[in-house]
C-alpha cells in the first residue's frame, strides 16, 4: 500500500532575461524563483491497483515518482510505501520496486541484452532459481527470445522497451513505476507493451503506477486515474468519472486541462 499525506516539494530555479548582457548580470547576482512542484499532495493506492497518473508537462508527475522511488526527499508530509519511508532507507526500499524511465535506457549499449540482465541479477542479488524462472516467464510474455542475444544498440525502440520492462521486473518487484513507457513506440509495440502490463497486473498482482501523455494507454490500462496540475491533485477517480459519456478521450482530457486552467 502506498500513502502520501500532505506532501510538499519546491525547487529553486535561477531565472534571467534573454541575452548575453543578462547572462553576465546573472553571473554576479542571480534571481531565484521558487517552483512549487508539489503542494499538499495526498493519495492512497492499494496493493494490485493500476493507476494512471496524468497531467500536463511540469505538473509534478515525475517529482511524485521520484519521491515514491526514493530519489527525492520531500520538504514536508509523510510518505509510506508498504510500511517503508522511501527516502530514509533507500537500498531496502528500491529492492522492492521496479522503475522504467521511458526516455532513458538501463541496458548496456554494446553487449547482448542477456549480459545486462545477468548484471542486474547481481545488483538485485537474485537467486539462480528465481532468476531462471523470471527470465523464462518474461521471455515468453514479452517475446524476447530473439532479442536477448543482440546488443541493445541494435534493437528497435519497441524491442528495446520490451527489454527495459523485463529488466525492471527480473527481481519481481511488488510495485512497478512506468514513466512514459510507450513514448515513441509504433502501434504494434504499443499494443504489446500495454498487453504485457495488463497481464503483469492481473497475474502477478503487481501494483502499477503509470505516467503517460498517451490517453489510449490510460484507456486501455488504468482502472483509476489521478490528475495532477500545478502541483495539486485535481481529480481522483475512474475513467468513467472523467469521460462522463464523452467518447473521445483526448478531447475530454484537453477540456479537463482547460477547465482547471492547467494546460
Amino acid at each position, binding site marked *: 500500500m502506498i500513502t502520501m499525506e500532505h506532501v510538499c516539494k519546491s525547487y529553486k530555479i535561477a531565472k534571467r532575461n534573454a541575452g548575453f548582457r543578462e547572462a553576465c548580470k546573472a553571473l554576479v547576482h542571480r534571481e531565484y524563483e521558487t517552483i512549487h512542484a508539489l503542494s499538499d499532495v495526498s493519495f492512497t493506492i492499494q496493493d494490485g491497483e493500476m493507476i494512471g497518473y496524468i497531467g500536463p508537462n511540469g505538473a509534478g508527475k515525475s517529482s511524485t515518482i521520484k519521491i515514491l522511488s526514493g530519489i527525492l526527499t520531500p520538504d514536508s508530509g509523510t510518505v509510506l510505501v508498504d510500511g517503508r519511508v522511501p527516502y530514509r532507507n533507500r537500498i531496502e526500499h528500491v529492492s522492492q520496486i521496479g522503475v522504467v524511465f521511458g526516455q532513458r535506457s538501463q541496458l548496456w549499449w*554494446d553487449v547482448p541484452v542477456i549480459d545486462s540482465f545477468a548484471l542486474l541479477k547481481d545488483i538485485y542479488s537474485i537467486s539462480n532459481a528465481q532468476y531462471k524462472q523470471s527470465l523464462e516467464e518474461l521471455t515468453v510474455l514479452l517475446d524476447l527470445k530473439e532479442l536477448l542475444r543482440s546488443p541493445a544498440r541494435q534493437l528497435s525502440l519497441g524491442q528495446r522497451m520490451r527489454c527495459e520492462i523485463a529488466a525492471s521486473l527480473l527481481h519481481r518487484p511488488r510495485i512497478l513505476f512506468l514513466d512514459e513507457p510507450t513514448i515513441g513506440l509504433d502501434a504494434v509495440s504499443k499494443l504489446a507493451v500495454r498487453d504485457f502490463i495488463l497481464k503483469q497486473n492481473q497475474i502477478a498482482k503487481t501494483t502499477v503506477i503509470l505516467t503517460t501523455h498517451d490517453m489510449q494507454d490510460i484507456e486501455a490500462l488504468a482502472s483509476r486515474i489521478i490528475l495532477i496540475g500545478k502541483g495539486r491533485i485535481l481529480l481522483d477517480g475512474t475513467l468513467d468519472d472523467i469521460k462522463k459519456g464523452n467518447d473521445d478521450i483526448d478531447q475530454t482530457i484537453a477540456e479537463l486541462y482547460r477547465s482547471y486552467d492547467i494546460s
Partner: protein
Amino acid sequence: MCATMNKILSSIKLYLHYVSINIRSMMQYKTSFFLTTIGQFMISFNVFLGIFFMFLRFSSVEGFSYNEVLLCFAIILLEFTMAEIFARGFDLFPSVVRSGEFDRIMVRPQNEIIQVLGSKFELTRIGRMLQAVVMFAYGIAKSNITWDIPKILTVFFMLISGACVFFGLFLIYAALCFFTLDGLEFMNVFTDGAKEFGKYPMGIYGEKILLFATFVIPYTLVQYYPLLYLLGRRTSALYVFLPLCACLFLIPAMLLWKYGVSHYASSGS
C-alpha cells in the same frame, strides 16, 4: 562479522561483474581501443622525453639524480593511472548527473559509489601504465637502492595510498558536480597537475608547496617523504607507514560525496 564479510565479498563479485561487462563493451570497438591506448602511451612518453632531455644538460635537480627522478615520476604515474583505470566513472560524472542517469543509480539497491566505480573501467590507460612500469623497473635497477622488506613494503604502500589520494580527488570532483551540475576544470590542477608536478620530488618546489602538499592534499606522503626513505636519506621506520596516513584523505572526500548525494535528493536536479 560473517554478514559483513559476505557483504564485502558480494560487493567485490559485483564490481568484477561490472569490470567484465565494461571489457566486453570495449571489445566491440577494437580500433578505438588500440589507438587510445597508444595515444595514452605517447602522452606520457613525451613527458619522459622532457625529463630525459633536461638531464642531458643538468646532471641533477636539487640533489636528485636522473634515475631517482625517473623512479619518482614512475611511482606517481602508476598511482594516478591506477586511480584513473578504476575510478574513471567519477571523472565522467558531470554527464551522469546532467543526463539524469544518476536517478537510475538511486533506484538500484546498491551503494552509489560502487555503481559509479562500475560504470566505467578505463582499460585504455594500460598504455600509460606500461610506460610507468618500464620507467619504474629502470629507476629501480639504476638507483642503487639496497632493497629490504621495509623498503618493498614502502613502495607497496606508496602505490596503494597514492591511488587512494587520486581516487579521493576524483570523488571530490564528482561530489562538487552535484552542486554545479558541471565539471569543474580547476580540479584538474590537483589531479593532472599533481601528476605533472609529481615527476620531480615535491621537495624541490619550496616550503609552501611542501606544506600544502602534506596537510591539504597529502601528495608528499605518497611521494616525497617515502622516496627519501627509499633513497636512504631518511632512516626512521616511521616512513614505511607514512603513506598509509594519506588514505585518511578519503574520509573528507567520502563525507563530501555523501553530502552531495543528500543535496541531490533534496534538489533533484
